[in-house]
């Protein structure tokens, strides 16, 4: 799963650089994006979770050095808290102690994962005017998906069966919480930029639920959702930033199509992910599928709002939006090649 997400992140960076608005310094975006990609590639190659945490620490320090309104120490808090929690969780899993230790370890790993991505209850401080590369969007939409897939796949090797159920249950619980919080926040919050950030949280809720189910359908759903975050929501957010500053809502057909993509409706990538997730939840515990289905309805008003905030893409951005729409339709209609590539 990780190499596929690395590929998606590379494609997303390519789209962001090539189709960036004229005023965006492409060289800087490319430099810092490549640095992030190098870190992500190192995570994929890392043989143990300890090395992944060391790479994460390094990336966090490098990102915190970028200019921002928030100070250096403040920006390091979330990733450092995440590294501390993940390392504590890992240490608990490796100890020959009571079973409670293993469960504490599972809690530490899940809490660390949520902290590094910036989900509830460790939501990162977000400044809409901050540059994207220095903002928490990097963790939630660019580095986060691959990091989460790596952490979860490596954690499953060290978490014993006794604590495995607790690990899955925690992921599902936090996933449902983030689905509701993110979709309602994205719908009701005052600022459009903050609404975009909440929408990332809602999508992450789906991914966490998919990982937590622990069966093939859930894993497949999580992979497709993460793909749609990296190759759908992230580039669209980048291209909407200009319109967000101008605060001119637009009601063109294109905005409606973008809203459909963001809502996960057919034929876009979010649709098969939702179907797989509901099927997986039904296999595991059918009332969970009811809760998930109810939460999925909340995407609609939020997505209509975000679609309107896109403005009217012109020039390069219009080409970029068309490519993103095409990729998401392709993934929505034929997800099987991606799933086969990921071994699912």
């Amino acid at each position, binding site marked *: 799963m990780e190499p596929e997400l690395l590929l998606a992140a590379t494609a997303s960076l390519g789209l962001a650089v090539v189709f960036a608005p004229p005023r965006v310094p492409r060289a800087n975006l490319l430099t810092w994006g490549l640095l992030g990609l190098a870190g992500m590639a190192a995570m994929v190659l890392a043989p143990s979770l300890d090395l992944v945490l060391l790479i994460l620490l390094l990336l966090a320090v490098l990102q915190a050095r970028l200019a921002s309104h928030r100070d250096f120490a403040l920006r390091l808090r979330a990733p*450092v808290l995440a590294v501390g929690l993940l390392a504590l969780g890992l240490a608990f899993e490796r100890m020959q102690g009571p079973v409670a230790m293993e469960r504490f370890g599972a809690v530490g790993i899940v809490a660390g994962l949520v902290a590094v991505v910036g989900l509830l209850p460790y939501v990162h401080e977000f400044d809409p005017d901050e540059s994207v590369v220095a903002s928490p969007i990097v963790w939630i939409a660019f580095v986060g998906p691959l990091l989460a897939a790596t952490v979860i796949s490596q954690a499953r090797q060290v978490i014993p069966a006794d604590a495995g159920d607790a690990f899955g249950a925690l992921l599902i619980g936090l996933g449902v919480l983030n689905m509701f919080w993110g979709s309602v926040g994205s719908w009701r919050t005052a600022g459009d930029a903050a609404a975009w950030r909440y929408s990332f949280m809602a999508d992450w809720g789906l991914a966490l639920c998919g990982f937590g189910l622990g069966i093939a359908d859930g894993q497949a759903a999580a992979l497709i959702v993460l793909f749609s975050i990296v190759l759908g929501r992230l580039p669209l957010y980048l291209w909407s930033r200009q319109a967000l500053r101008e605060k001119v809502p637009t009601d063109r057909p294109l905005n409606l199509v973008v809203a459909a993509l963001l809502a996960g409706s057919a034929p876009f990538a979010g649709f098969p992910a939702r179907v797989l997730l509901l099927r997986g939840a039904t296999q595991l515990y059918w009332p969970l599928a009811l809760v998930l289905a109810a939460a999925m309805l909340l995407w609609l008003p939020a997505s209509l709002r975000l679609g309107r905030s896109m403005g009217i893409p012109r020039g390069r951005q219009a080409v970029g939006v068309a490519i993103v729409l095409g990729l998401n339709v392709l993934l929505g209609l034929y997800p099987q090649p991606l799933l086969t590539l990921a071994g699912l």
Partner: protein
Amino acid sequence: MALLAVGLAVLAWPSTIFGAFAIAAGGMIAAAECWRSGPATWGIMPAGSTARLILCIASGVLALWVASAVTTGTGAPLRFAVLVVLGLMAARILMSREAPVVLAGIASLALVLAAAPGLAPASPGPIPALVGGLIAAGVMFVSRARPAEKVGT
């Protein structure tokens, strides 16, 4: 920092000698840089230390529980060191806003992450220790490097 580096290197010695050297070297470089870059004032219990004092007591109680639960059997010193350093350094970083203090905490975290693979049943090899030592040494130079770069998007 120097004491921490030496302690972790000694604990890592049985599993990987090269790794122990890497941890010691990285920690010593970080300690030297820490000595040069930190504020030249007495930093123990200044005004406003109540929160830290409470944290010390709470961590002491937690350490007692951990000690009674996990410091038995082989490898107990490393287990204890990893837990205590992780907990205290993460707390130190979360409570501080001064860059040198945060960076020293991060260097310590890197050192303990370098030694932590020794807890695993299989030998981790020297790579985590080498990477951790390099990060610990390199991180301390961040505050001396050129000012933060401006990036737009």
